[in-house]
């Protein structure tokens, strides 16, 4: 009756081999984690992966390295690490990563005992944590899920092999090692019970860690220490200097740039323009942020967690805040479609606010995903002119000339072109039929119509950079196709020449809807450049998108594009990512409070429901007692009586019914409920404490002639008592 294991058991040598190979697997996992960091240690990591693979595939080869090597390897590695740190300080993350890689390589190749195995586990955990903290990627979840069972299995094997001090200096024999043989043995050691137990253990770990993660008290830290934050370069199109083609280059990249968690799809009533950066200065085919916008007083520097704004007069899109997750390495400027009442960051950040052009930036471009919440978000087509723009109004009164000196906002009027180029612009402007109107919107529509009629959209523009003329003006003169920067650039130059202050804006336009988890996705291919033209009549900046295929040429017309929906495997993986950011990365004290409130509400509701049900039952009972002879009550009592009698009858006849069912189902005689029950008691009586005659009676029930449950019940009752008494003893 024993439930003994029947399967193969791995011997000590095989366990040692398995432990060694698991160490190599952990090394691979570590290198995988480190590879996702952009710290310039690629070659060392590639070397590490090669070594780990070698140790995994040909462990015998690694074991043939002479023992004397390890005597010198340690000091040599230490020296290399010291030199590396010395050469690269104060930059420390890159040498740190190289140090960890070298240490793991050393540990994978050198013979390992218990202490060294622990070092491998710790190094792997370190790599995973560093990579996870720096990238905040979903990959960390995958890696830690792989790491946890691997580390537990390794620790378990270490524990199995522990036989005191002597067992800690074991030399593994690799002479006859074959992967196929070991895997066959491991397969033999597995059975359903082991798999189920492992699965149950894993479920326990996941459940407990989830509970701990949720219940660990969080504090609302306003001054959290930035830990392993690494900066990188912005994408070419989203930097302070944008050359023609920089934005279009990003269009080839299909990866996700922004994920936007918004209240509902209805909040996207019009196509969003994720405005990131305003470029006011133009020279020789390059738009840039003028020096005046880069420095005080137009740019203010502050350290804040919540950035409030008083520009919003009406409620935003949806009552809930929008959470925007921006991938690392895109830009240091925040993609915001319009005005807002406040922006809230995860931690206190160094914020650069260029209030004059409605742009918010951070001090650096992060490598990892960065999220922020925007409250009362607006989709502006017109941006209010600020005090900074006051000069434009004055200049407008004096009928703006083509060459206005000074910094911003005068930079939005500067052309910096040759007379020939200005003449070309004038000639084009003269073709517009403005019907005498000096309205910026009318001009914008006319200019846009002109561009749409004469040029078509293409990612392979026919720009001649060697004509000696300004490339945008040359394209206007000789070109026929171009990308968004050429259209926007041409519009800016034409508008400026026509006397309208204009500036180029870069960011993202449109996006798609992930229908699996209901969030908005903006990809790098949605990068776009458009224009803002100053409307002196209304005293604000009007958004104009002169690129063909983006709705109406009338800038005042609200354009709603058909929403694109994402589904399928990639959308599913992407939805996992947003869940990761929503539930894990952005989990904070408020969420804990919300969870607690939700739980309290649910308990309150359940209690109320129970209370109401009890009150109803009490009312019914009261009604029954007060008027027992009422027809309805008599019927209810009768139904209750029938129900009780049926229940009692069923209970008394349960064994007879079971026997009938057994006979009807045609199951084997060995599956007779009496035999099964006797087998169960016999199994429990095996450990002793049950009298021999009773055991014999149980054996008779188990193996003897068939008996009815009724006749067997007294024996079962005695057996139950005997077993219970044994427990009490």
């Amino acid at each position, binding site marked *: 009756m024993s439930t003994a294991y029947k399967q193969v058991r791995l011997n000590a040598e095989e366990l040692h081999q398995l432990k060694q190979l698991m160490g190599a697997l952990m090394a691979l996992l570590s290198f995988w984690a480190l590879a996702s960091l952009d710290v310039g240690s690629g070659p060392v990591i590639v070397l590490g992966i090669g070594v780990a693979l070698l140790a995994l595939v040909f462990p015998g080869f690694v074991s043939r390295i002479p023992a004397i090597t390890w005597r010198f390897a340690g000091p040599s590695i230490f020296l290399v690490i010291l030199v590396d740190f010395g050469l690269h300080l104060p930059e420390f993350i890159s040498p740190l990563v190289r140090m960890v890689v070298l240490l793991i390589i050393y540990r994978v190749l050198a013979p390992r005992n218990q202490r060294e195995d622990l070092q491998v586990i710790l190094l792997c955990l370190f790599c995973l944590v560093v990579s996870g903290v720096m990238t905040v990627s979903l990959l960390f979840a995958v890696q830690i899920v792989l790491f946890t069972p691997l580390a*537990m299995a390794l620790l378990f094997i270490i524990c199995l092999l522990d036989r005191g001090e002597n067992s800690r200096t074991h030399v593994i024999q690799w002479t006859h090692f074959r992967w196929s043989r070991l895997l066959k043995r491991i397969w033999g050691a597995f059975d359903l019970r082991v798999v189920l137990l492992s699965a149950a253990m894993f479920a326990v770990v996941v459940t407990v860690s989830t509970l701990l993660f949720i219940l660990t008290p969080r504090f609302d830290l306003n001054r959290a220490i930035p830990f392993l934050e690494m900066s990188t370069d912005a994408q070419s199109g989203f930097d302070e200097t944008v050359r023609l083609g920089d934005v279009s280059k990003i269009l080839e990249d299909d990866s996700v740039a922004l994920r936007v968690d918004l209240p509902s799809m209805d909040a996207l009533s019009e196509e969003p323009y994720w405005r990131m950066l305003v470029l006011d200065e133009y020279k020789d085919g390059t738009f840039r942020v003028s020096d005046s916008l880069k420095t005080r007083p137009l740019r203010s520097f502050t350290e804040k967690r919540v950035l409030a704004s008083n520009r919003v007069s009406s409620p935003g899109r949806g009552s809930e805040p929008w959470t925007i997750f921006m991938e690392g390495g895109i830009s240091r400027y925040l993609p915001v479609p319009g005005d807002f009442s406040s922006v809230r960051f995860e931690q206190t950040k160094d914020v650069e606010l260029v209030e004059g052009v409605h742009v918010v930036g951070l001090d650096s471009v992060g490598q990892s995903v960065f999220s922020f919440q925007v409250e009362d978000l607006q989709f502006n087509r017109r941006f209010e002119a600020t005090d900074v723009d006051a000069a434009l109004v004055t200049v407008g009164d004096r009928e703006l000339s083509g060459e206005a000196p000074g910094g911003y906002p005068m930079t939005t009027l500067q052309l910096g072109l040759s007379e020939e180029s200005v003449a070309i612009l004038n000639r084009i402007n003269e073709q517009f039929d403005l019907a005498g109107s000096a309205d910026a919107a009318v001009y914008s529509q006319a200019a846009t119509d002109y561009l749409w009629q004469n040029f078509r959209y293409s990612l392979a523009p026919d720009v001649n950079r060697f004509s000696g003329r300004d490339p945008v003006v040359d394209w206007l003169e000789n070109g026929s196709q171009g990308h968004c920067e050429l259209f926007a650039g041409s519009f800016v130059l034409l508008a400026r020449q026509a006397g309208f202050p204009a500036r180029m804006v870069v960011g993202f336009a449109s996006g798609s809807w992930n229908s699996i988890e209901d969030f908005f996705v903006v990809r790098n291919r949605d990068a776009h450049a458009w224009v803002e033209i100053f409307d002196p009549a209304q005293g604000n900046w009007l958004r104009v998108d002169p690129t063909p295929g983006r709705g109406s040429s009338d800038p005042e017309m609200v354009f709603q594009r058909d929403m694109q929906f994402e589904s399928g495997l990639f959308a599913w993986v992407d939805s996992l990512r947003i869940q990761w950011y929503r539930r894990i990365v952005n989990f904070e004290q408020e969420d804990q409070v919300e969870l607690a409130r939700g739980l309290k509400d649910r308990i309150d509701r359940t209690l109320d429901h129970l209370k109401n049900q009890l009150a109803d039952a009490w009312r019914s009972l009261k009604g029954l007692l007060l008027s027992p002879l009422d027809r309805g009550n008599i019927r209810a009592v009768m139904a209750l009586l029938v129900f009780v009698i049926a229940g009692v009858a069923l209970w008394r006849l349960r064994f007879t019914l079971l026997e009938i069912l057994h006979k009807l189902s045609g199951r084997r005689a060995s599956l007779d409920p009496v035999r099964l029950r006797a087998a169960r008691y016999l199994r429990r009586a095996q450990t002793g404490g049950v009298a021999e005659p009773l055991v014999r009676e149980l054996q008779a029930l188990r193996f003897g002639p068939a008996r009815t449950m009724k006749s067997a019940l007294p024996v079962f009752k005695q057996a139950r008592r005997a077993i219970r008494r044994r427990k009490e003893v």
Partner: protein
Amino acid sequence: MADASREMRRWHDWTDPDFFSPGDQEEQRVVPLFLRQILPRHLQRTKLTLIGWLLILVALGMGTAAYNTSSNILFMTLSLLLSSLVLSGLLSQINFHKLSWSLQPPEHLQVGETGMAEVVLENKKRVFPSMCIAMQAGSTGQKTMLRLYLDRALGAGQSSRLEWTFVPSARGRYEIFLNGLESMFPFGFIRKVVGRREAVSILVWPARTDYEFGFAAGGWRFQTGFSKRQAGAGSDLLNLRHYEKGDPPRLIHWKASARLNKLMTRQLAQEGESGYHINLVPDAEDWSAAQFERLCSVVCALSEDLFRAGRLETVSVAGGDPLPVRGLRELHSFFDQLALLAPLNHPPQRAVLPAPRNVISFNPLREGGVSIHVDGIQAGQA
């Protein structure tokens, strides 16, 4: 020291499943109980291993970093570390659940003889195996405890035996003990010990020694009419037993067979040889300590040989009543007496008995020897 030893024997901390059961806890004062949990020192039952200390250090570092940086990645890793600790505790609890053990000492043991004790482990669980079980065993006089390892998983319902050997160096009481079961299962974070120290005391008989002895010194070899309580071919009825194939029909006891409705055979007593009567006087004045040990060894060896030859009748120690030695039980009882025998000042002399002759007595010889006398005549020496 004695207090510490007693405390050690009684010790069980809160990790012991019986800790809260009434009656087990003798210490009732709150402060000592509280201090004992905080600073258990060498009496503790659950010790952190190197891996455990590392886990705690890593968890502390991780927690500090998590709170300082508000990084949920670190909180997540911390949760995983702590949950692995919870799982470890859970599995460790399951590992020891319904695991019983008993210490079985050897039945007989003489000085200088290699003894073997064994621990019988039984896993009474219905599903889970017990793994990585070790135990610390020791015996009187051993300086270091011996760690025994169960080298395989003990499946549900299975039992296993772990054995170890030891060599006692002196006669007398000898203690074999087991300091509970311990295990680092499953991940080696803690070394957990369950169960109390279990000790078994055995009596170590004197060592065998070489001696010279003339059996027929008294000249009385056979004695008719004197039967022994051993089965043989004499005429006295010793016993009735069931008939076995090959028994001569003349030995069938027909009357008993008729009454019991089964064939019964008469078993007759052995016609006796004249036996010896050992009289041991442990007079402290006569025997030095070393000589006394030798005396015990000689008596032990001689009595065993005489018994095997069927010629040991009675033994008498320190003037006590002569005890007949009919079987091994009596002989072993005499050996137990020898194991604990100590020299006495003025021990009572045995009264002179008229009937039995062949009384063996012992006297000291020079240079630590022992002379053996039968009825006062030297018959041998050692």
